[in-house]
């Protein structure tokens, strides 16, 4: 065993010296390789953390949401629909929600306005999310102007701001009183944006939704389970930019591996020829190239993954910010908890190391089995 370890160490000594002789080329290779892994791992970490956080906190979202549809669009729902929904067995409570969007022409930001029973909210007084406070540079005691549906200017006083810890769900929120909301958007009394229902037995939710659909055919029902699945599907690897990033990175990696697999440089071929000529076995040469692949891929893998972890969980994915921000003026500043999926990480490690080593070994094996004299010529 000791002899075997000593043999490996001698070969690693030689491999490191060989790599250092071509330090410029190898440093460039490690940088590109590490960057590919860094981008892949960053996407994996960010998506996994968002999905996990959504699955935890959205467990407390409404069991069932009922929205009225008219001519294929979401319409205001009569609050009286709630009484009919309440009559369905299995429903323990029905509440109405008043919420909507407000475009702020001063900053160019979109806010979500919501009526709340929060004791800090009353007629003329609002509570704002941390993102709104940043966009409007508004704090408790300040007033914010809103333009109502008829063009009238309504001044609402900021009573408080929502804790920035919960910015991931509340950054663009403005909590207003029911009377102010109806005044701003001309929502008639007796109407709400949608209704929420509490279902006693979670297993009965789909059945209750079906009963609501039969009772009120002009409504659509959104189950809590569907809300939870939304975030699983939204950041699915098959969808949107994620597949673009993944395929780009995969292509870069294939080019990298193809370059290695398509043949060795004349310098590398000469080196193998000399080693064979001075008595190295084919297995020794293969071992040398195996360690070379290991050193390059492991160095890239470790640095790529560790940098990706720091990028996502210490710097709030600042490289993704321009893509996530899009054209939005109001961008929530949130930090996600580092939920890592060991299986995904193991898959990433496997995909980053094994194909590269295989791609390196095959051309070396082809060269090492040829007569050293012809290789050196």
């Amino acid at each position, binding site marked *: 065993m000791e002899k075997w370890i000593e043999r490996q160490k001698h070969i690693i000594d030689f491999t490191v010296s060989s790599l250092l002789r071509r330090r410029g080329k190898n440093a460039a290779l490690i940088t590109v390789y590490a960057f590919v892994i860094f981008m892949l791992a960053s996407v994996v970490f960010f998506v996994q953390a968002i999905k996990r*956080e959504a699955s935890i906190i959205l467990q*407390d979202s409404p069991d069932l949401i009922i929205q009225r549809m008219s001519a294929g669009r979401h319409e205001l729902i009569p609050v009286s629909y709630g009484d009919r929904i309440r009559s369905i067995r299995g429903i323990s409570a029905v509440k109405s929600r008043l919420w909507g969007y407000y475009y702020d022409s001063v900053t160019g930001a*979109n806010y979500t306005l919501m009526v709340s029973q929060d004791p800090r909210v009353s007629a003329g007084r609002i509570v704002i999310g941390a993102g709104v406070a940043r966009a409007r540079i508004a704090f408790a005691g300040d007033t914010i102007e809103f333009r109502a549906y008829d063009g009238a200017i309504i001044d609402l006083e900021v009573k408080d701001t929502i804790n920035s810890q919960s910015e991931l769900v509340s950054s663009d929120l403005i909590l207003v009183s029911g009377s102010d909301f109806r005044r701003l958007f001309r929502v008639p009394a007796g109407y709400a944006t949608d209704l929420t229902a509490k279902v006693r037995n979670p297993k009965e939710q789909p059945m209750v939704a079906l009963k609501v659909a039969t009772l009120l055919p002009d409504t659509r029902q*959104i189950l809590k389970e569907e809300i939870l699945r939304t975030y699983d599907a939204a950041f699915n690897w098959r969808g949107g930019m994620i597949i673009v990033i993944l395929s780009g990175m995969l292509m870069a990696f294939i080019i990298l591996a193809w370059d290695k697999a398509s043949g060795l440089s004349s310098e590398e071929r000469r080196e193998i020829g000399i080693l064979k000529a001075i008595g190295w076995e084919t297995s020794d040469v293969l071992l040398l190239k195996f360690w070379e692949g290991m050193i390059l891929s492991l160095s890239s893998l470790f640095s790529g993954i560790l940098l990706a972890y720091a990028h996502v969980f210490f710097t709030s994915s600042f490289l993704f910010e321009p893509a996530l921000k*899009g054209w939005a003026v109001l961008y929530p500043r949130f930090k996600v*908890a580092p939920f890592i999926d060991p299986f995904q990480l193991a898959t990433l490690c496997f995909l980053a190391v094994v194909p590269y080593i295989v791609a390196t070994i095959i051309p070396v094996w082809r060269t090492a089995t040829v007569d050293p004299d012809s290789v050196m010529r």
Partner: protein
Amino acid sequence: MRKSSLFLLYLLVNALLFVLMFVHASHQQTASMPSLKEKAFLIERLGLTDLCIFTEASYTRHLSQADLHTPFQDAPMSLEHFPSGSLVSPSPIIRKIDGKVD
């Protein structure tokens, strides 16, 4: 020191950092519980349904509340023009409605 020993030391340091990464993640998960509970409490109290990741378009601000008719409605032949719309996949709720329409 031999180059092989230096390399093994380098591997050991990296493996240690890797383990530390998992330890840090586990510690941070526990530490973030109060913040997660606060968010969950806010969601329950206000009846919220979505994460506030994108604020530029209503259908990406409230992913679970989006409907089939919201995107692409600005003009005939108008393609998706909000960057966030190309970042995320549609909700399964939309696919359900889509099924009915088709």
